[in-house]
């Protein structure tokens, strides 16, 4: 089960956040800050799965952007790793050059809508990126 999905840049600013469990607002910012701290402290040859509190973080770095997904133990970590990449490719296709530009402002809304369509309630719906709404 995916607990949350974050896109955070290196400075710690959240670009996208989607929580699938209720977490209070001030706790969210703390969580995001801690998560990015963990991810930044990892070196390149360490594995992408971090055990954090009672769940796992899976992160992937794309230039200056970190995509972090929090999962519980029922998920296949590697599949989620692939999912992250898949999503970024979708965004790439749709908004062009996501990684380079950390995407532009007006795309933020569209992107959140599409993300909600992409993964409905903790599950990944599709990999077929032509059909994204």
């Amino acid at each position, binding site marked *: 089960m995916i607990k949350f999905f974050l896109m955070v840049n290196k400075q710690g600013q*959240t670009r996208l956040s989607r929580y699938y469990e209720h977490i209070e*607002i001030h706790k969210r910012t703390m969580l995001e800050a801690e998560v990015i701290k963990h991810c930044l402290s990892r070196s390149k040859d*360490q*594995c992408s799965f971090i055990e954090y509190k009672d769940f796992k973080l899976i992160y992937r770095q794309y230039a200056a952007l970190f995509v972090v997904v929090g999962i519980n133990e029922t998920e296949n*970590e590697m599949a989620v790793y692939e999912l992250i990449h898949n999503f970024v490719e979708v965004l790439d296709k749709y908004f062009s050059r996501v990684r380079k530009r950390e995407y532009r402002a*007006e795309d933020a809304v569209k992107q959140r*809508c599409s993300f909600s369509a992409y993964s409905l309630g903790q*599950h990944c719906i599709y990999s077929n990126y032509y059909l994204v709404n």
Partner: protein
Amino acid sequence: MAQRMPAPIRLRELIRTIRTARTQAEEREMIQKECAAIRSSFREEDNTYRCRNVAKLLYMHMLGYPAHFGQLECLKLIASQKFTDKRIGYLGAMLLLDERQDVHLLMTNCIKNDLNHSTQYVQGLALCTLGCMGSSEMCRDLAGEVEKLLKTSNSYLRKKAALCAVHVIRKVPELMEMFLPATKNLLNEKNHGVLHTSVVLLTEMCERSPDMLAHFRKNEKLVPQLVRILKNLIMSGYSPEHDVSGISDPFLQVRILRLLRILGRNDDDSSEAMNDILAQVATNTETSKNVGNAILYETVLTIMDIKSESGLRVLAINILGRFLLNNDKNIRYVALTSLLKTVQTDHNAVQRHRSTIVDCLKDLDVSIKRRAMELSFALVNGNNVRGMMKELLYFLDSCEPEFKADCASGIFLAAEKYAPSKRWHIDTIMRVLTTAGSYVRDDAVPNLIQLITNSVEMHAYTVQRLYKAILGDYSQQPLVQVASWCIGEYGDLLVSGQCEEEEPIQVTEDEVLDILESVLISNMSASVTRGYALTAIMKLSTRFTCTVNRIKKVVSIYGSSIDVELQQRAVEYNALFKKYDHMRPALLERMPVMEKVTTNGPTEIVQTNGETETAVLETKPPHSGLQPGSQANDLLDLLGGNDITPVIPTAPTSKPASAGGELLDLLGDLNLTGSPVSAPAPQISQPPFLLDGLSSQPLFNDIAAGIPSITAYNKNGLKIDFSFERSNTNPSVTVITIQASNSTELDMTDFVFQAAVPKTFQLQLLSPSSSVIPAFNSGTITQVIKVLNPQKQQLRMRIKLTYNHKGSAMQDLAEVNNFPPQSWQ
């Protein structure tokens, strides 16, 4: 009239502005300003720009600022007819609303209407929102609509409806049956999106309800269908729509494998049906990219979980072994995790990969190290324990602090189970104590002490090594505690240089006391450690010969210590020196070997007697059926009888008068005077003591007595007197103190007194004060015997005496019949 506000800025402007902020405070300011603008705009009920304002609000919410005042606006947007409005409105609802807010119920009607909308996108939005945040009431109301949509032919809607159904089932499990008919045809779809979500729905149903699971296994023939789909996925050629790095729809494959896992668990038929496809997936999947490995990982998990045949299992473990050798950290991590799960069931297969696993201990990555450590501990067995321990000790040296405690505990456990020899065991423990001494858990200390006590032949070696270890550094508390305890117990061995296993070192008594005193004084020592040290010093007063005065001085200093625990001990030890000096040797003698008992069952404790560790107090098999048994301490089958810990009369010395009564209180729960050294040790083996209170040499205030003493034996210059005391609280107990004196001109050495009583009695002998009776009546040996006489029969006793006198061994038997009636009536 209020002036019309200027058009609110667009979202992208807002984002640009916020990004220019250089500090947190600046950002907060901007956001607050914008929030105020938005709020006034809402108040004006402006339809045109509502959508834009809510979008901005959502962005600010994402950054972490409160946005609850936008909730009603979201509802208004949902109710609007424009698609763009609806879209933002639903998004806002998903992000801002949940069951906790009452407002969400107002949405129900809107969603209902939208579920029946003519445009599929609107329907899709509604399904999305319901599936994200629908409460149980909403789900109950709208489940019918969802079910209807599940049956449509529109695949776009079908897949969303399936996921929405998952959410409905989670919220309202009773509605599960409603969706059952709709699931019949779900897997016949071509569209992968629908397939994927249907598998999710089926998984959810099977996980939640065992009835459903059984139903799907038998009636629906789900397994063959899934197998067919999976086969098509693998065998079909390149399909651009679903391809991810050369593999066709890996996400669907993983999902199907997971469902197969649930179906096959504990079910032979299903497991058999899927054996082939699992083998096929395992062998055909490309492993060069991460995608392939993800699928293999899921396959391995499935194989291990169902009732697969052994060939398949071996295949799975080999795949994991291959993963371990892969350079990619993620894959190694995943392999270690799975191996940990399977090590219980397929131990031998995993053993084959032991060397690779041990190599992973040296990996840089923290998660991998942790997994490797856990797995290594699981793999230790009698054959490989030496090698594994070497690696693990090396790991303990170099690992991060967060691992040290777990690693130390793991090593102790493994060493206990598989130690090839006592010396090795003790060496290992020493190594752990010296490398990770401060991370060792508190409960390890008493366990270690017990272990050391039980390795009788290693005492000298152990104490020497421990002494050397704390000479340099006495900051690691568990190490210091164990070392102090051992020095206290075996200090005489240390000073006499008796070590056989290694070069004995020359240590003087003063040096030993120096180190113990430094521990006492040091700021680094915890209070508990100081307690250990003080008790150790006290014990040494009977083992050392020339430094007793120094010990007395040290002990008296601490009588005014601020630490209450230390103070109490010091005061009581002082009392021991002053008033009860004759009892001191008996009280402070060597601890006996302890049996490790996990239950509070009867223990068999060999009572020691001074330097000879194994003087078992026997009773002769008498003709009148006296009490048999080689252990004198089976009093009432309950006692460990190991009461010779340095237990101090627990009554503080300010009230000596009442101490007698208290001490004779059989059922007293007199705490063993906070001497944690002695407390954990005997308590491992002992159930509630009955004779707790009598364990210390009782204060025989003669007030309680009034029973005449007798001479039990008088022959060849050896005279033994019995004096009696009865307990006020328990009249069946008689306490006899014997005094043995020697009127000849030569000492009697190695004196041992043994006694037996009739079957209806029970007897306990405590240790004598010494084993030498000096000549010319210049001193006596004192020993305490406790007799339990529940039936109040006449007391009779047979005694056996053995001693060395004038160079020859003497032995005598006698019967004592002249007990005064007051001693047993």
